[in-house]
């Protein structure tokens, strides 16, 4: 739809669009008028730009940059590239100027193209054939992670004397910990501080034929460990563990003599400050009876048996070599276990017994209430209510009243504050519309030292036929000019400016009385705004100056004057 650009509203919007960006509403209105495609106003503005532009030469470097991004420059499809992005031009031909025929016969080239490329054997790009000729990799194992004493001779697989044949990644990867193999079958719990963890890659793990460990004698002792040894190994000190029999004897001896945490010296136990220990709830007699230990616990120790805790498992209690649970092959008889290693039933609830409690005193037990005896229940309830009700009633009755009183106090304070501020707020004086004419009349009526001087016109055309006067009050340093018939001025072309000649000052530099405009030929009253104090008034003069006024007038066009007699 094409509208009429001569429509006043369309003309106005089109002109505005050529001068400034339109908002959405104006765009919509322009579309509704059907003249949004009209660009005649834009061309008019551009013609004004062309007509008033002083031509300057464009820098040649800028021309080169523009040409580089121009369409067709270097074979660039500028419509498909970002502004300012220069892409390399494609090669027109082979820059080496060597054809494929000169390099090799066509048959060889075709064969080379059809032959599949050999796949690299590994990530390093070494062919598989080259890998086969290489000697097997030598893997250096740290002595700290080797536990030769943990595996019996009957459990040891055959060890290749030529060395391990494990791939490197298998040797360096920590093995996954199989917890079922770290716990002795039968539910026996390892001794405190002897539980193998997943961080230890060798201890407590049943070796597999693929991960066969070399004999201890073949392991170089001076080589540093590739992986840090476990924490308990570092604390234990010697890297070479004692013989297997010694470890078993120590383990059995330790398990046969449990240590009571309360009797442990603080320097020995890192958990001396532990507030409570886990103790089984009443010990089940069947566990004790089925125990095979020849040394039963004393009565007090039977209540608090030594239970291994996870934190204690990390740090050993005594500086002895680690005792690690040994995996038993299937079909082999289990070694008899001491009594303290019998596991507690998982279903048994545990309770926390504070250490500070006197264990010699019996645990107080509340008498069971007779459920069927209603009268006894009523007595108990009555007795309890008789003790507690008065206090609660007092609280319940006082608190709401206190809250209500506080609310009333706050509300009253707010009302009082608002009242005080309302009373203290000054009453704004009534706004009275004042004009220079009314102010002039008030000055004439109130001031006693006012001077009224009539204007004298000059031959200048702007003041021809003008009349009026000027009123001045020396005490208030204010006054008013009144004109009738003074030529209206265009503020963009020139403005009137008042000058006040002071007899006490240099006559070459009168006091600036301000710039003013005259909008009509009728009566115009202008307030005088002197920039300096006028001590002794001599003459008022009005000149025509450029818009905004001047600091020093050339006095080329003096319109009116008013001299004090």
């Amino acid at each position, binding site marked *: 739809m094409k509208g009429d650009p001569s429509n006043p509203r369309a*003309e*106005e919007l089109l*002109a*505005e669009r*050529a*001068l*400034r*960006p339109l908002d959405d509403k104006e765009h919509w209105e322009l579309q509704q008028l059907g003249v949004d495609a009209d*660009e*005649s*106003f*834009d*061309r*008019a*503005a*551009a*013609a*004004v*730009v*062309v*007509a*008033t*532009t*002083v*031509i*300057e*030469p*464009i*820098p*040649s470097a*800028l*021309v080169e*940059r*523009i*040409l580089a*991004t*121009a*369409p*067709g*420059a270097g074979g660039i499809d*500028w*419509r498909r590239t970002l*502004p*300012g992005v220069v892409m390399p031009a494609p090669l027109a031909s082979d820059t080496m100027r060597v054809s494929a025929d000169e390099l090799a016969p066509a048959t060889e080239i075709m064969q080379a193209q059809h032959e599949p490329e050999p796949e690299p054997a590994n990530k390093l790009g070494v062919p598989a054939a080259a890998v086969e000729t290489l000697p097997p990799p030598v893997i250096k194992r740290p002595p700290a992670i080797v536990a030769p004493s943990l595996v019996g001779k009957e459990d040891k697989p055959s060890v290749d004397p030529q060395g391990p044949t494990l791939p490197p990644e298998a040797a360096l990867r920590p093995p996954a910990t199989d917890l079922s193999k770290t716990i002795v079958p039968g539910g026996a719990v390892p001794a405190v501080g002897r539980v193998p963890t997943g961080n230890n890659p060798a201890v407590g793990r049943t070796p597999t034929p693929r991960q066969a460990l070399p004999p201890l004698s073949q392991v170089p002792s001076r080589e540093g460990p590739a992986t840090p040894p476990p924490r308990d190994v570092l604390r234990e000190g010697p890297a070479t563990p004692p013989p297997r029999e010694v470890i078993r004897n120590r383990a059995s001896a330790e398990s046969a003599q449990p240590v009571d945490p309360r009797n442990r010296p603080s320097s020995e136990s890192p958990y001396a400050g532990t507030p409570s220990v886990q103790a089984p709830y009443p010990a089940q007699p069947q566990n004790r009876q089925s125990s095979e230990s020849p040394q039963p616990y004393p009565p007090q120790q039977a209540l608090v048996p030594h239970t291994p805790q996870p934190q204690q498992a990390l740090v050993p209690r005594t500086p002895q070599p680690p005792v690690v649970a040994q995996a038993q092959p299937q079909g082999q008889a289990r070694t008899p276990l001491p009594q303290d290693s019998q596991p507690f039933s998982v279903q048994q609830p545990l309770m926390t017994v504070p250490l500070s409690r006197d264990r010699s005193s019996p645990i107080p037990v509340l008498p069971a209430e007779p459920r069927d005896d209603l009268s006894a229940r009523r007595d108990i309830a009555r007795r309890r209510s008789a003790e507690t009700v008065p206090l609660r009633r007092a609280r319940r009755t006082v608190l709401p009243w206190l809250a209500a009183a506080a609310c009333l106090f706050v509300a009253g304070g707010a009302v009082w504050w608002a009242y005080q501020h309302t009373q203290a707020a000054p009453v704004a004086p009534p706004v009275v519309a004042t004009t220079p004419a009314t102010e002039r009349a008030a000055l004439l009526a109130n001031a006693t030292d006012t001077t009224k001087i009539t204007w004298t016109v000059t031959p200048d055309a702007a003041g021809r036929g003008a009349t009026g006067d000027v009123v001045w009050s020396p005490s208030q340093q204010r006054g008013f000019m009144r004109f009738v018939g003074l030529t209206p001025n*265009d*503020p*963009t*072309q020139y403005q009137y400016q008042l000058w006040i000649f002071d007899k006490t000052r240099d006559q070459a530099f009168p006091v600036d009385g301000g710039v003013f405009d005259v909008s009509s030929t009728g009566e115009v009253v202008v307030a005088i705004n002197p920039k300096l104090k006028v001590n002794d008034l001599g003459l008022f003069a009005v000149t025509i100056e450029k*818009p*905004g006024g001047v600091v020093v007038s050339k006095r080329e066009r003096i319109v009116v004057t008013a001299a004090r007699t």
Partner: protein
Amino acid sequence: MYVSDRMVREDVIDERRVALPPLLARVAAGDVSAVREVLSRYGNLVWSIARRFEPSDAEDAVQEIFLDLWKSAGRYDASLGTEVTFIATIARRRLIDRRRTARRRPADSGQVAEVVLEEVAADGTSPAASAEASKAAAALDRLRPEQRQVLVLSTCHGLSHGEISQQTGMPLGTVKAHARRGLISIRAALLGVQEEES
């Protein structure tokens, strides 16, 4: 080193006298030589307009203008106006967009109002003027001084109405009225040119 201004002036003057073959259609068709001709013919004009709007960042503005021109070359309609006016329209729009984005003000806007009248008087017969520009210059001379001042400040220097009001001391409504009426007068003069030519 600068490109010779003499060649551009002669080209533009020749365009006013002799109808040169349009270049923008060839640019739209992908003619590389036409691109070079456009640059040599109108590069100085675009550079000068950009320098007037953005004295500090004129180079980037000129590159953007020409990139816009390469893309918009296909939209040029010789029946609506000359190539000079078309290119100046694109340049002006791009410069106004840049100023609007950066919200910049003229570097020395205080002197703008003082030199405008001299510019108009001196450039009414600017070497870069085409037939439309010559008519526009003549129409500018016929405007009232305040109208001419406001129109030049608005179209050539990119000042907003508020900025012009602050610079000249005119009320905002007066500035808007002067700009609108002045532009309507220029447009009427240009349309008269086209009617005469047709």
